[in-house]
C-alpha cells in the first residue's frame, strides 16, 4: 500500500483539560488544500474549513462529511427554542470530558463559557470532571450526557425526569440527547485520526 501514517511534527501534547486554543495534528494524510474538487468543497460546507487538516482529512468521504456537518450545525446553532446554546455546548463539553477528548472539550468548553457566561463553572467541569457540583440544572444535564455516553447506554427515565424537574421541556431534552450523541461521534473521530497539540508559541 502506498498510504502511510503521517508523523506529527515535534510538539507538546496537552496533559490536562483546558479552554486554551489547541492545534490538532492528523495521523493520516489530509487532502491537499489546492485541488479540492467541487464535491469535496461541498463536503466541507464552509469554504474556510479547507484550512483545517481535520476537515480536509474527512473530505476524503465528502458526502458523509457534508451530512455530518449539516447535522452538527442544526443541533448546535438552530436558535429556535429548546436548550440555550450555552447548555448545548455544555453537553458537548461534558460528553468530551467523560470520553476523554481533550481537543473537543477545549473547543466546546470555550463556547459554553462564552454563551453561558459561567466560565468558572465550565472550568470546574474540566478540572474536576463530570462529578463537579455545578448546580442542579447543570448537574442534571451533565448526568444525562454521561449516562447516554456510557457503553452500553445507561440513559433511563430517571434522567428524563430529573431534566424535567430542572425545567427542561421535551425539545430541550431532545437537544441534550442530540448534543451528547453528536459528540460521541465527534470525540471518536478526533481521538482516533490525530492528536491535540499546544500551539507552538504557548
Amino acid at each position, binding site marked *: 500500500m502506498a498510504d502511510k501514517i503521517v508523523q506529527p511534527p515535534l510538539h507538546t501534547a496537552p496533559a490536562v483539560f483546558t479552554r486554551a486554543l489547541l492545534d490538532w495534528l492528523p495521523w493520516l494524510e489530509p487532502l491537499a488544500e489546492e485541488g479540492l474538487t467541487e464535491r469535496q468543497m461541498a463536503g466541507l460546507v464552509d469554504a474556510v474549513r479547507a484550512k483545517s487538516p481535520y476537515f480536509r482529512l474527512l473530505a476524503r468521504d465528502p458526502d458523509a462529511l*457534508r451530512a*455530518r456537518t449539516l447535522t452538527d450545525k442544526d443541533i448546535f446553532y438552530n436558535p429556535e*427554542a429548546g436548550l440555550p446554546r450555552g447548555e448545548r455546548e455544555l453537553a458537548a463539553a461534558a460528553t468530551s470530558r467523560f470520553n476523554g477528548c481533550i481537543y473537543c472539550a477545549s473547543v466546546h468548553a470555550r463556547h459554553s463559557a462564552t454563551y453561558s457566561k459561567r466560565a468558572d463553572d465550565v472550568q470546574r467541569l474540566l478540572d474536576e470532571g463530570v462529578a463537579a457540583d455545578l448546580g442542579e440544572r447543570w448537574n442534571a444535564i451533565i448526568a444525562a450526557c454521561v449516562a447516554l455516553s456510557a457503553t452500553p447506554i445507561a440513559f433511563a427515565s430517571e434522567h428524563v425526569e430529573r431534566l424535567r424537574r430542572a425545567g427542561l421541556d421535551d425539545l430541550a431534552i431532545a437537544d441534550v440527547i442530540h448534543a451528547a450523541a453528536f459528540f460521541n461521534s465527534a470525540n471518536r473521530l478526533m*481521538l482516533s485520526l490525530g492528536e491535540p497539540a499546544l500551539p507552538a508559541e504557548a
Partner: protein
Amino acid sequence: MSAALTDVIDALAGIRPGSALDAVRNRRPQAREQAEASFRALFEPESFAGVSAAERFAVAVFVTGLHGDAVSAAFYAERLGATEPSPGVPAAVDAAIAAASGQGPYGRYPVGLLSREDTPGPSYHVGPEARRILGARLAAAFDHAHLLVFHPRDAAPARLQALLDAGWSTTDIVTLSQIIAFLSFQIRVAAGLRILATA
C-alpha cells in the same frame, strides 16, 4: 427492506408520524434530514468505493451489538443478510460481539495530572477462528471498532497502521471511522428518544 423506509432513527426509536416526538424532531428539521443523509452516505452511497456493502453492514452489526442495542443490532443484521455475505460471516460476527462486549469508556490519558483518571480495560483482537471466517481486513476493522466504541482515548498511530497493513487505504479508514462514529451517534439518538417518549 427497501428504501421506502422513510427515516431510520424514527424506525429505531419507534417514532410515529403525528406523535409528540415527531413534532419535537421537526423543530430541528435539518438535523433530522441530515442524520438520514448520513445514513445514506455511509450505507447506501452512490458508490461503495473502497469499502463494500458487506463490510459496512458487518461493522454496523458489530458496533450495535457492542452497544447491546437489540433494536439497532437487528436493523443492521437484516441488512447484512441482504448483502449475501460469505457463509458463516453472520455467526462469526455474533461470536465476535459475545467475545468483545464490555463497558466503556475506559483508557489512558497523557502522563501527568490526568493519570489518576486512567481506567484499565481490555484491548480486543478478533480471535483466530472468527478471523479465519471474516478475513484479515474485516477482522482489523473489528479490532479498530472495539477501540473506538469502548476506549477511544487509547487510539494511537499504530492502530491506524494495523488497518493500513490489513489493506485499508487512508480514504477507506476515513469511511470506516465515519461509520463507527455515526453509529455512536445514531444509536444514542434512537435510545435517548425512545426513553424520552415513554418517560
